[in-house]
């Protein structure tokens, strides 16, 4: 990784966090009237991904999709407008935060039924194989999604058909308020289990962006050279509540020690320290960068607020193509 890549990943993480923090800060205005699943704390994975993904690569995601959408280069303005339900939203206001799409950058869609986009991504990968495109497909989902049968069905099919697809599991140890314990066997290593299905698998610390970067690069190389699918597991942690803008540490479903431990592993703070040590960053640069981002983000919110709702008739249009 050269310095440019390092800096650019840092900026991406800051960008992601500022976007999400702004959503959180302004959600209480009751103008973004749809469920939002923020990924504050999980930025490293998407930021690393943004460096590795090629323009032609396809991406899909689940309910917690903002960062994947932005990482692939999805339009910030269209996303924020979508959250506000405005006519210039990426899904014309019909989908909201749970249904993002930006075909200009091959972000093919995100949906909020757990596991739902996993097989759809396999279909996208299959089509690009049929069309002999060089691109591959990345699909993001959580540790909860591997409890859905469709995950196994899809991995099996991807292996049999040698599809150019990367399954990316962001294991943040929780599904809503439920820890892994009532959901999965003790001591299970997700990536090991999946590997036994017959797919190459990697695991990395999802809060260490350089490791994420290397893992994505390795995965990409593997798919490119072997023409086979890959499974990735990243361990990480979300800082806020499952759905909505708030911190929910008061609910005590996650121990305070655990939270503290993970906050110490904040992907941005640690990486920032490292880059400061490396003299790639300093307080001033950080300040300027954040300010730059804030302006962009605030503009997106300003524009979204100013935009019109779609024509009411649009609700009754475009059911069929």
């Amino acid at each position, binding site marked *: 990784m050269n310095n440019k890549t390092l800096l650019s990943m840092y900026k991406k993480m800051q960008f992601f966090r500022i976007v999400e923090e702004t959503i959180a800060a302004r959600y209480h205005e009751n103008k973004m009237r749809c469920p939002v699943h923020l990924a504050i704390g999980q930025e490293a994975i998407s930021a690393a991904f943004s460096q590795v993904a090629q323009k032609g690569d396809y991406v899909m995601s689940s309910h917690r999709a903002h960062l994947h959408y932005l990482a692939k280069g999805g339009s910030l303005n269209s996303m924020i407008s979508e959250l506000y339900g405005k006519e210039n939203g990426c899904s014309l206001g019909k989908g909201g935060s*749970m249904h993002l799409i930006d075909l200009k950058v091959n972000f093919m869609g995100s949906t909020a039924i757990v596991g739902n986009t996993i097989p759809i991504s396999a279909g996208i990968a299959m089509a690009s194989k049929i069309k002999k495109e060089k691109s591959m497909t990345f699909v993001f989902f959580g540790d909860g999604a591997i409890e859905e049968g469709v995950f196994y069905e899809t991995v099996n099919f991807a292996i049999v058909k040698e599809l150019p697809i990367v399954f990316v599991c962001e294991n943040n140890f929780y599904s809503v308020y439920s820890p892994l314990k009532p959901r999965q066997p003790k001591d299970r290593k997700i990536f090991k289990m999946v590997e036994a299905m017959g797919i190459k698998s990697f695991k990395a610390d999802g809060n260490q962006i350089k490791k994420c970067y290397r893992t994505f690069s390795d995965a990409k190389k593997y798919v490119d050279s072997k023409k086979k699918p890959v499974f990735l597991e990243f361990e990480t942690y979300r800082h806020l509540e499952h759905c909505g803008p708030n911190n929910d540490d008061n609910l005590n479903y996650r121990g305070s020690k655990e939270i503290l431990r993970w906050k110490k592993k904040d992907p941005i703070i640690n990486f920032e320290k490292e880059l400061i040590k490396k003299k790639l960053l300093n307080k001033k640069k950080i300040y300027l960068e954040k300010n730059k981002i804030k302006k962009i983000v605030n503009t997106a919110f300003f524009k979204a607020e100013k935009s019109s709702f779609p024509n009411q008739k649009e609700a009754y249009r475009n059911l069929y193509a």
Partner: protein
Amino acid sequence: MPKISFVDAINLAISHSMRKDKKMICYGLGATDPKSIFGTTKFLEKDFGKKRIFDVPTSENALTGVSIGLALNGIRSVVSHQRLDFFLLAFDQLINSAAKWYYMFGAKKPVPITIRLIIGRGWGQGPTHSQSLQSIFAHIPGLKVVMPSSPQNAYYLLKDSIFDPNPVVFLEHRWLHNLKSNVSYKKSNKLSGSKVVKKGKDLTIITMSWAVHDVLDVSKRLNKEGIDIEVIDLSVIKPIFWKNIFASIKKTGRLLVIDTGAYTGSISSEIISEISINYSSRLKTPPIKIAMPDFPEPTSYGLTKNFYFDKLEIIKNIKKILKIKKTLQIEKNIKLPTHHDVPGEWFTGPF
């Protein structure tokens, strides 16, 4: 009679049932988490222990099969899903197994399970968190389908569902959750529906779930304007209890059905069809159906603005069927909610 919320009524129905049937269990995603499925399962872990109420993996199809197996081996269960939409993953177990088991194995083993499905609405729930698919369940022989509308009937319908020996799909509307009223803790009965919740002689309105409240409010206020409407709360969508419906039609000769599901193929179509087949001669005017549009529910506040029918829409159709031309008092005085996408001030998202 204590005044309690719809959520508490559900909670108490489960709790009282678990007390009555010492083996009964209860599970679902989030059943024992801090939010306890919008509060509907709160205290149950404390009262009944981890073995009788527990959280589960996100495996809707398997967990439906599990409830069937539990039933076959003598354990009654209540299984909860935070949205109906998630349960589409479990249609094999529901339709191929639960619904048919008792029949297809020659009446050897009943399958007493109660599947609670919560229907979302508003606040950008959008296309996959707001589906009201009662008519799909109602088409399947062997299922019972229940839609409560108030704390009182939520309480007894849920208890009756739990102690019914058949698989019951219990459709709970999110917008009813905060509703409060007095509730008597009646003993369990045989599940029954089509309750006349307001008597009248000019027009029969049949409806269900959250729509009952708008209909009742409008109907009561119309009495003062000399319009006497009979309101039937379906409550049990399958099997439909026809007796009260037919009796009402014979009396009023006019029918308006108001449905929370999509227009085409709704359970309202079934009601209109049956009445047309059997009581055409009693109908003084053609029946009317109000239902949700044949579109997925969009997410945007702007797009849902007129997507749901409101009281004005109901009044308009009442006037049409009764051939009233003049502007009614109620139309002048009507107060529509400030925001169409929340059930009340208490609701500020996120889901």
